[in-house]
């Protein structure tokens, strides 16, 4: 996956706040949008989301990572207004959603958003086919059309042949595939996934992540993906936002976060990550000084991928961009240092 550098902004959060508790709205209004821990305590408010600003670009896989209770679910629900933010702005395709009418929100959610839930939220009384077709049924699309679309999606997520099963007859991984297919049935522009794989066994989780990468390479959706698993975040993200106590403490590409964690909290996550598998050559390369090199490596390759390309005595490799133009070089010692860091 590559980082869409100057793609259009699909979704933007501007100083979004969500406070839980009595009189949250009035306390927030009086404070003028800035509340300290002490003030929150005094008014017995719980801050789900605190002053979050971020941009999600078109076609980007944006992962929100944080420990349980850090406000990820609350934030993602603010983005679709499933939870009404206490303050701030949610701008979707240039439109401030917080100013949209109920009717407009129904339209937006029907046609432009899809969501996968942590605990699946499959409707037990509906078959796999009917579950996947459900969002279309709600829109009043006729049976033949919605079922045709549902069958395509069931095929896409690899559940072909199980259309007539009921959710309870499927394994956890299969159930989540149904959830994924259902969320895609309306061809959403913006795809929310709230810890979709957290409830699954580690092996199945890995398999589902691969499946997800495959899907995304076909679909190229704009994605907001929630997880509490840093490894999962690194595997799937173009960019990661790390949350703590309702705040976003760092936003960056996986390698930015691994190379330069903003604070000890973030560093604790990156500590155990094999940097060589995250850091790309483009992040370490130096300007080409004209010396002789023993080969070429793409700028998008990770250090782990670049290491075997060094010959027995070569000191450096040329780094090339997607078009094949030389953009810099990378030296053996740099690679060895990263590899030794684990």
């Amino acid at each position, binding site marked *: 996956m590559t980082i869409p550098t100057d793609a259009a902004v699909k979704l933007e959060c501007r100083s979004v706040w969500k406070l839980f508790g009595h009189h949250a709205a009035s306390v927030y209004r009086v404070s003028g949008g800035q509340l300290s821990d002490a003030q929150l305590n005094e008014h017995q408010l719980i801050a789900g989301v605190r002053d979050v600003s971020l941009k999600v670009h078109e076609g980007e896989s944006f992962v929100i990572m944080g420990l349980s209770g850090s406000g990820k679910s609350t934030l993602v629900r603010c983005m679709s207004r499933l939870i009404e933010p206490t303050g701030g702005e949610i701008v979707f395709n240039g439109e401030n959603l917080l100013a949209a009418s109920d009717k407009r929100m*129904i339209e937006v*959610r*029907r046609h432009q958003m*899809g969501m996968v839930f942590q*605990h699946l939220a499959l409707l*037990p009384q509906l*078959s796999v086919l*009917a579950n996947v077709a459900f969002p279309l049924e*709600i829109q009043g699309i006729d049976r033949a059309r919605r079922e045709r679309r549902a069958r395509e999606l069931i095929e896409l997520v690899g559940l072909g042949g199980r*259309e007539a099963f009921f959710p309870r007859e499927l394994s956890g991984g299969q159930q989540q595939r149904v959830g994924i297919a259902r969320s895609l049935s309306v061809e959403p522009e913006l795809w929310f996934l709230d810890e979709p794989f957290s409830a699954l066994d580690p092996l199945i989780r890995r398999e589902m992540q691969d499946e997800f990468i495959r899907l995304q390479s076909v679909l190229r959706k704009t994605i907001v993906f929630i997880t509490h698993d840093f490894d999962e975040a690194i595997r799937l993200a173009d960019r990661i936002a790390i949350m703590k106590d309702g705040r976003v403490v760092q936003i960056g590409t996986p390698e930015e976060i691994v190379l330069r964690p903003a604070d000890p909290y973030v560093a604790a996550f990156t500590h155990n990550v094999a940097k060589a598998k995250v850091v790309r050559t483009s992040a370490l390369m130096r300007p080409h000084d004209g010396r002789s090199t023993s080969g070429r490596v793409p700028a998008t390759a990770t250090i782990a991928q670049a290491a075997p390309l060094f010959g027995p005595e070569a000191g450096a490799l040329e780094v090339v961009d997607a078009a094949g133009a030389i953009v810099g070089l990378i030296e053996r010692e740099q690679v060895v240092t990263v590899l030794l860091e684990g």
Partner: protein
Amino acid sequence: MALADTTQIARRRLSGGGWWVAWLIAGAAFVALWWFGSGWPVDYPKAAQVPAMRVVGDAMKWLVNEASFGIFSFVDLTRFIAALIEVPYWISSSLLATGLMTTAGSAGVQIFPPVSWIALIGVLGLAGYWAAGWRLAALVVALMAFIALFGQWTAAMVTLASIVIAVPLGVILGLLLGVLSYRAPLVERVITPLLDLMQTVPVFAYLVPVLFLFGFGPTAAIVATIIYAMPPMTRLTVHALRSVPAEIDELGRMVGATPRQRMWRVMIPAAMPGLMIGANQVIMLSLNIVIIASMIGAGGLGFEVLGALRRLDFGVGLEAGFAIVALAIVLDRLSQAVATKLQFQPHRGEDRRSLIARHPYLVASIVLALGCGLLSLVEAGFQTFPAAGQLSTGSFWAELIAWINVNFFTQLEAFKDFLLLNLLIPLKRLLLSLPWLGVVGLVALAGLQLGGWRLMLLTGGLSFLIAATGQWEKAMTTVYLCGIAVAVAALIGIPIGILAAEKRRLWPAVQAMIDTLQTLPSFVYLMPVVMLFRVGDFTAILAVVLYALAPAIRYTAHGLMQVDPTLIEAGRAAGTTRWQLLTKVKLKLAFPEIMLGLNQTIMLALSMLVITALVGTRDLGQEVYIALAKADTGRGIVAGLAIAFIAIIADRLISAGARRTKARLGLK
């Protein structure tokens, strides 16, 4: 954390000590008032009584005679509703019981007979097979055959005809009210106390107004049944909707469902298991009240039991009673299975097969009904179960009871007199001598301790109202009867519950027994005790104990079986004996649940007390019953409300106590 814990414990100790002192002072004041007091704090002054009966009676008269919406009167409205219910009832009753008649009533001539008994059993069996396989089919056929065999068929069909109207109406109304309360908190706040009253005011109390408004006959009985059977549906609907996982509701919103779609396409289907429990409650309660309903013209099995009670024909009463139980089981199991089956209909594409291939069960049912109809023209046995084949255990029971009476009369009398003289009468005297003001004070103090000042206002206020409306003495008699019955039921029920929980093998048998105890109509219990002990307080208490025993057993066993196994492991690891484990760990943890069981026992006891008024108690129940006989709305409603108040006070106090204990034990 540790600091917070210790301060909390300290605070609790302090408040515990505080309550101790408060109770001591209150107790002393109470005793002083009791011994030395006289005048108004002891006997509520007549002059200060609220003329509640007259007010209610006048209000009723106004409703019946004058209330009007301009173009039509209130009674026009209720009669219109009655007429609306009359239509489906006419259909169900023609189909099942009377057949198609030229004119209503006994003067009519039958044009077309009702469904033959063989056909109906066959159709119900087919429905059972379609919905859940041969086991259910066999159960349904066996139970319905039992009804036919004991000669209860015709009566059962009359009952069934009104039940199949009352139950769906109750379920739908209850569901709609539940949805409304779930959506609008304001509606819920208004409806909840109404539901409390509907569930605690004895049916007898509102039979008279229902009669005035809806007229004598099956429709009035259906209305009374719905009032009585609907509240749990509403409560369970709200509860089931609240228990739907938040993500499911979010899914509904996320796919852009409109509010209506969210409710009916997402929430209601997801809440189905809870709603089915509600429907089950409606069925059970509807059958519970068929006997009372028969007093205002419902006829059927209830009428049989009532007649048997008047004649003291225990055998017939028992058989009709069991027929009601059989009907309840059939309706319950069948409706649950059919609802499940319908809900999980597998997806079908276009079906081009023939009608028979598509709907084999429907076709078979119609063929069966028509076939039996035609055959019955030739052989009457197809139409009605041949009298020659009927069984009855009536003479057996009569002889058994006669034998007991002949051989053990003196012992039974001695037993009864002993208890009366040494326990019942002294206790009654004691309770009746208590000063009303003191009792109100203590009840209020208990409310304050268990639930705070709101509960204090409620319990104190309601008990004051009982005194202020002139119901105090009757109410204390009710408390005395109910108290003894509940104590005895607890003494018998809790040990049985413990035994069933400790020896799991016994549980299925015990469960079947208490299920039957609870569905068997309360009237049935009256007969044997009346035959053995004749009328009076003792008999009433015995009947109440029998009827109210089931929840004491059930909740005790449930509570014990639900104790967290890891805690039991921990206890074992600590080397407790079996007895210590039971008393120190399990019973302690199950205590809140047992309290709730006791609460249910009290509720059932109060509802049964009204019925035991038939055997001559002198409490609120009798008051309600007299009012029914005299068609005195005011008197009946006021006494009925007093019973409801006692029930509500007991319920709130016990629930609050159980909640506190639960919180203290760290069970959520």
